[in-house]
């Protein structure tokens, strides 16, 4: 069943939804990355909740004009206008008053959402228009998705992607270093406004599929997951787009493969699964990699300290250090150094002496800054320099390495 869904064998509507969701996910992942990098991810929550009154008003206006009130483009236009208004209020509150952006977001989000719910309730009691289904914008609904709806989503998403491509450089520089951006002629206010406008666009486009309460997840989760995989903003943007698209496609397919699985929430959970995998297994920034790195480092420190203790003829008391030495064949179970252990210990001690001399010499300041107690001096200095330092240590030389 799932395989059928993944290969678009589940019928017209399921195929339409899967393609639409994949496009939406890509656009929101890419756009959301810049919001995330600018550290303003929560603004998207205010934007999405502020769409609700617009939906209600657009419906009322369209009914008043004699339409059926559920034209998707009309509803999206209305939601964009009220979300834009909400965005401006957040900007104004955080720039012109002493309120922080977090407080402004909280205020705008709840007030707009509350007003929207009031409007929906009023609409329920209206006699004209086919109001049924308006509340599906809260959590998204794909059951009755039409070809035109899919086209609207595709066009909106494609426009947002094209604009991101055009503005990616200024948006990146503004996120990283706004003060510098201003001096090289980037209008930071307009770039920020463009970033917000793009997020607004994908939010509005995503209302139909994911719904306004969960669409924020598609803007935030893919970038956060993508961040684990790269230290380059360009790559993070691409990976976030891929994650978003994959979540949309997989989520839509999964929800189509069984009855009564809601599309939007399943898409969000799929995105979360990608996030979880990234968090755990990403090579450099993932938790497992960090844990392994820490364990390795821990082990090196203990081994080094153990060797230095052996070199000084001291007994190694710490059980784990002793186990490490034994396991490496450097010491016997009673803590006495083996032949190999003595050689390694002598080398560690020599290394330590050389470092001690080096760190006292102003001429080697750059090299001295690399001292971390573990690094072997051969990785920092040339043989000539080491010979120079050995000359200063004096005493017998020429321990075979």
């Amino acid at each position, binding site marked *: 069943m799932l395989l059928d869904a993944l290969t678009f064998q589940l019928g017209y509507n399921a195929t339409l939804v899967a393609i639409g969701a994949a496009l939406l996910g890509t656009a929101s992942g890419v756009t959301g990355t810049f919001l995330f990098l600018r550290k303003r991810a929560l603004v998207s929550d205010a934007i999405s909740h502020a769409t609700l009154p617009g939906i209600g008003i657009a419906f009322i206006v369209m009914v008043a004009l004699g339409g059926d009130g559920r034209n998707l483009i009309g509803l999206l236009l209305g939601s964009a206008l009220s979300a834009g208004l909400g965005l401006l209020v957040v900007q104004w509150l955080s720039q012109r008053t002493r309120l922080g952006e977090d407080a402004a977001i909280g205020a705008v989000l709840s007030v707009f959402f509350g007003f929207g719910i009031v409007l929906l309730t009023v609409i329920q009691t209206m006699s004209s228009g086919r109001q049924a289904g308006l509340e599906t914008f809260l959590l998204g609904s794909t059951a009755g998705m039409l070809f035109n709806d899919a086209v609207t989503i595709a066009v909106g998403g494609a426009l947002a992607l094209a604009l991101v491509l055009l503005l990616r*450089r200024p948006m990146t520089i503004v996120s*990283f270093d706004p*003060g510098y951006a*201003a*001096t090289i002629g980037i209008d930071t206010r307009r770039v920020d406004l463009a970033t917000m406008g793009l997020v607004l666009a994908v939010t509005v486009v995503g209302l139909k599929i994911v719904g306004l309460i969960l669409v924020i997840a598609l803007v935030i989760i893919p970038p956060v997951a993508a961040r684990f995989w790269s230290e380059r903003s360009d790559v993070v943007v691409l990976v976030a787009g891929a994650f978003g698209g994959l979540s949309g496609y997989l989520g839509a397919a999964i929800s189509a493969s069984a009855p009564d699985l809601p599309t939007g929430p399943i898409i969000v959970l799929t995105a979360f699964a990608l996030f979880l995998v990234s968090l755990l297994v990403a090579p450099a920034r993932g938790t497992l990699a960090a844990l392994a790195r820490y364990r390795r480092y821990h082990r090196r420190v203990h081994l080094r300290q153990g060797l230095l203790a052996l070199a000084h003829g001291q007994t190694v008391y710490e059980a784990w250090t002793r186990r490490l030495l034994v396991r490496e064949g450097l010491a016997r179970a009673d803590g006495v150094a083996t032949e190999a252990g003595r050689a390694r210990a002598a080398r560690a001690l020599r290394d330590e002496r050389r470092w001690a001399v080096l760190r006292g010499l102003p001429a080697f300041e750059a090299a001295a800054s690399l001292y971390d107690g573990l690094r072997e001096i051969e990785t920092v200095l040339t043989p000539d320099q080491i010979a120079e330092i050995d000359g200063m240590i004096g005493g017998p030389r020429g321990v075979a390495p």
Partner: protein
Amino acid sequence: MSPLELVKPAEAVPDAPLAVRGLTVTYREKPAIFSVDATFEDGALTAIVGPNGAGKSTLLKAALGIVRPLAGRITFFGRGFDEARDRIAYVPQRASVDWDFPTRALDVVLMGLYRELGLLGRVGRSQRARAMDCLARVGMEGFADRQIGQLSGGQQQRVFLARALAQNADLYLLDEPFAGVDAATEKAVIAVLKGLKAEGKTVAVVHHDLSTVRDYFDRVLIVNMRKIAEGPVDTAFTTENLQSAYGGRLAEAQLHQLALA
């Protein structure tokens, strides 16, 4: 027009790389700098010194339009900032960026090429080579692939200097480049600045370490909200001027040592 602009300018140096006249910047109603005239001469290496909170950084930020002055006129090479922008490079104080940002040292330097690349210009081999060259000038070519937050404070400062070098400007403005950096970085930075001067570029540096002013710079601007003095180090960096800028904050003996060293 602000009343301060009606005051006749002290001396007219129409084409100086940077000239400010009657510059006043206030935060709320407390002035950071008040009616300052200053001229940064072509080809000079100028230090801007003064006690903490004297408005040194504010002066630069106002000149660059990062903070808005309340009054005053600022010209770069005799023109407004927007017209002269391509000839100006700025190295901000280090603390102001997000160190966990996904960007490598090389990417930061490539940001310096933004004006040249524009929105859609591709970063080709020649741009990358130029960025690497700028990293090499500050001794950081071995760190091109490091994420910016994984570098030490001094190394980060050098990367930001490399970004300014990539702009290939005629006027370099640096805000406290020597604050909290290691000796190796300080040496590398001053060597680059002297190199720029040798190429005929103009450099102005907000500086806090009075003991190195004589070794590093040829001109000095001493400020403490007002301009105290400006001119060649030999004539302007005097005990009296430092005394009036720093007041009791520097011991008498220290002052003598600095100015007469």
